[in-house]
């Protein structure tokens, strides 16, 4: 059994909370198929009422950005503070933004 377990593929788990609008990544787990992954995710990640909806995605299907590219990808945004919408004067009616 323990041999089989090490062969179970890895799945990434996304859970939408009661108030949340989107699914948030909460962690990963092992399962032999998608159905088992949903069951395992339910047991591991929603046992304290954390969620109302679960997505599971095979970890191998996720393409991640490379850490070595992070300078080129992310540093150029550092000095472009004007991209934040904080420079606009808001009318009083929308002051809760």
């Amino acid at each position, binding site marked *: 059994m323990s041999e089989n*377990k090490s062969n179970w593929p890895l799945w990434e788990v996304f859970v939408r909370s009661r108030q949340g609008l989107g699914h948030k990544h909460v962690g990963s787990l092992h399962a032999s198929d998608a159905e088992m992954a949903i*069951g395992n995710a339910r*047991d591991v990640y929603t046992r304290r009422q954390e969620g109302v909806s679960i997505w599971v995605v095979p970890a191998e299907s996720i393409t991640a950005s490379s850490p070595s590219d992070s300078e080129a990808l992310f540093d150029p945004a550092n000095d472009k503070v004007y991209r934040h919408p904080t420079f606009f004067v808001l009318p009083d009616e929308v002051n809760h933004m």
Partner: protein
Amino acid sequence: MHALLRLGDDALVLAQRLGEWCGHAPALEEDIALTNIALDLIGQTQSYLSLAGSLDPDAPKTDDELAFLRSESEFKNLLLVEQSNGHFGDTIARQFLFDQYALLRAEHLAQQTFDLDAAAIAAKAVKEIRYHAAHSSKWIIRLGDGTSESHSRIQKSIDDLWAFTGEMFAADDVDIAGSIAGLLPDLSALKTQWDVEIDRVLAEATLVRPKDGAMKTGGRTGVHTEELGTMLAEMQILPRTHPGASW
């Protein structure tokens, strides 16, 4: 009282067995799944035993007193649920055979109007048991329709436990009185439904339904297999050694 004790004891003894897997299941995910099921069953136990204990106004008992201060012969659970865990397949087979029965029983209890307290407990339990039954059924299919080794091992698990299935449907005075009152389901009708579900899952799992042979009974009258005594000794040692202890 007897009917509620049986419901509570089935859940309690099975929960204690499942709890023994904590830290030992074949995968972390399954470890949590089995102990989650155990916790669901302990919740059901608390409700059923509290209700059972409140029914005798002259000598009311708490759920803890009923769970921890009764002796082996006072437990009225099915022999099936007290059987030791064996390997993972044995545990799944025991769970599968019980879940299908427990689900049908809880569905009836949730709908009857003879005892509304019991109906409320069962209505909550139905949702839990529905998940338990889906979990154990899927494992039966996965193991039965899996490798040749998993197939032969889960077939043997079901064969070994089959002699304990007759007790679920062997109606005695308590069952018949409860059925006439409306509280309990008619066990022969329940068996027909149980057969359909069991056959459906076994067929999908490419497993063979064992032939009905001599069935083992006794749990409902307190005559248990040797498995229960050792389990209760471990379960009850703390409250018996330190009466009234709390933490």
